[in-house]
């Protein structure tokens, strides 16, 4: 009988090379976050389901992985969105800290979604939350960080889609449609489906200026001119305020030199319900899903008893990796600096070399398996070792080490004593302590 090896749907393994690429992405993004002064925070993987549900979008709540706490019998859930967790932690534990509070994270997230476009039921996010600022500069800061993150990953041809949910919400209030019709309107808009939108508008028959605005929504999409065109449709206060806010954010982005990387889209109605202000999604050419998304969520912390504005965004690491592969962005996958092969019976040369080089910060793997030199070297190459050091055996004389440069194929016979004394003399990149 075959041993059981199946993975549940939506689970994913990262083999060593994939794990190295994933780590590269995490490190690059955390570096960006650190350069902007963000501190890392770690939240629990599981919590009480009702606690996690607070602040989490209804759609996501339905898709939480749930389990039962053996001690209390209470329902637990795996983290399905870290933003409400961080909001609660700030509201309960960090509220007395000076503002703004800048927090960063890399985490796995669990959702019972249908796996699609590089999206799994356990997926990874790297992101930030910026808490305590209601100024538009806060949005601009996270947008600038998202752009810097995309560049740090070596990505090109990306575009940030910028919208404001209140523009549409204001129009919806004017329509005064029943909930089902509102959902249909939203779904048609999410697809930019002008034909269905037209039919729904005709059915709902709102005031003429509202009908006109709804019809225009899928086309309120592009650069600065969109803001002017939208002006004519923003007759209610909520839409007008949304437009004013977006206009200010866009003005600041122009000052930051980032206006070219963003596209305004007032017809984009995706994103979490908890977004209360400007929000964005980052798209990269040739990949059908956003690789990063975020926005303003001013009402979330109040749900935990602390009224405080906030913005945040996150990269989806699985998607970022998929896009990098699609764009042919290489990640250098390094093996150990040294691979030590020792044919002598007592192995003292190998042990001395390995310890000395590791003490200097180099990475050193040993052969240990007894086999022919060529087989050992083939193994070293497969592991992407930079240098092979050989003691004893067919090629190296007593008191000597044969140093093979596995990148250019050159070799040198070196005195073991001298290598142990000053390794840096012989190997570029190794520094003497």
């Amino acid at each position, binding site marked *: 009988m075959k041993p059981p090896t199946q993975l549940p749907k939506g689970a994913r393994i990262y083999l060593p090379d994939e794990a190295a690429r994933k780590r590269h992405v995490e490190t690059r993004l955390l570096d960006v976050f650190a350069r902007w002064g963000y501190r890392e925070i770690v939240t629990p993987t599981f919590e009480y389901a009702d606690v996690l549900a607070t602040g989490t979008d209804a759609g996501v709540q339905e898709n939480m992985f749930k389990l039962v706490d053996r001690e209390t019998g209470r329902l637990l859930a795996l983290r399905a969105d870290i933003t409400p967790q961080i909001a609660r932690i700030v509201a309960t534990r960090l509220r007395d800290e000076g503002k703004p509070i800048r927090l960063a994270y890399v985490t796995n997230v669990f959702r019972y979604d249908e796996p*699609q*476009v590089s999206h799994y039921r356990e997926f990874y996010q790297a992101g930030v939350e910026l808490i305590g600022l209601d100024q538009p500069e806060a949005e601009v800061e996270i947008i600038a960080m998202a752009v810097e993150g995309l560049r740090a990953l070596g990505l090109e*041809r*990306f*575009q940030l*889609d910028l919208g404001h949910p209140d523009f549409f919400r204001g129009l919806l209030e004017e329509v005064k449609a029943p909930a089902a019709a509102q959902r249909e309107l939203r779904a048609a808009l999410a*697809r*930019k*489906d*002008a*034909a269905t939108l037209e039919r729904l508008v005709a059915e709902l028959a709102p005031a003429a200026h509202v009908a006109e605005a709804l019809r225009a929504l*899928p086309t309120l*999409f*592009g650069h600065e001119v969109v803001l002017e065109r939208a002006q004519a449709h923003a007759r209610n206060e909520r839409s007008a305020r949304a437009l004013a806010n977006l206009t200010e954010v866009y003005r600041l982005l122009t000052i930051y030199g980032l206006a070219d990387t963003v*596209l305004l*889209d007032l017809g984009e109605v995706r994103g979490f319900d908890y977004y209360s202000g400007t929000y964005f999604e980052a*798209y*990269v*050419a*040739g*990949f*059908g*899903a*956003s690789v990063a998304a975020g926005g303003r969520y001013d009402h979330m912390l109040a749900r935990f008893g602390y009224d405080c504005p906030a913005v945040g965004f996150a990269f989806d690491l699985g998607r970022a990796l998929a896009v990098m592969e*699609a764009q042919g962005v290489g990640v250098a996958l390094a093996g150990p600096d040294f691979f030590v092969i020792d044919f002598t019976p007592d192995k003292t040369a190998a042990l001395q070399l390995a310890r000395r080089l590791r003490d200097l910060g180099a990475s050193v793997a040993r052969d240990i398996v007894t086999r022919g030199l060529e087989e050992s070297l083939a193994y070293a190459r497969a592991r992407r070792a930079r240098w092979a050091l050989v003691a004893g055996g067919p090629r190296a004389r007593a008191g000597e080490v044969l140093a093979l440069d596995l990148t250019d194929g050159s070799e040198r016979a070196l005195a073991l004593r001298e290598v142990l004394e000053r390794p840096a003399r012989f190997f570029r990149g190794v520094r003497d302590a």
Partner: protein
Amino acid sequence: MKERLTLALPKGRLLDGALERLRALGVDGIDPDSRRLIFTVAARDLRVLLLKPADVPAYVLYGAADLGIVGKDILLEQEPDVYEPLDLGFGVCRLVVAEPRELWERDDPSKWSWVRVATKYPRLAEQYFTDRGIQVEIVRLDGSIELAPLVGLAERIVDLVQSGETLRANGLVEVAEIVRSTARLIVNRASMKTEHARITGLIEELKAAPRVTR
């Protein structure tokens, strides 16, 4: 450097209409009878793929194609996360429930509590019946759906009809309409943003192109 845009077209009943509409835009030289599956239209800087209709959404969803033309029936069945900015208006047809004439003569759809249907559209069929509180057993087939009731594979079918000729020829009668369909232009979500100017330009041109009558 700008990369060439890729447009996915469905082979079969929508292809003539799509090519006719595209010709107005100067997209020419696509020979549906040749065995080639990829065509380059240098004049419009386009690459055109000919695909099985049901495959068009996947190519666009994953970005292997920036744009595609596909029937609304397939979009409703697959619900791909793509933009759908233009109803091209041609390829009009309807997804219907049909059954053999003998059954129809004594059947009362309002009394259905359980049905077995053969279909290429399992999701839409299931949704239609469950929305009406009817239990449904789906026999998923890939073609010649009309055959199923004739050989006793399923009592009823859910299938696309254009003129109704195929139904009649097989002694089947339409019982209910599920949805109407026309050809739609779909766009990859990222392409819509990263190739915004070129794609909105194409949409405008297609919108303005003379209507195809079929």
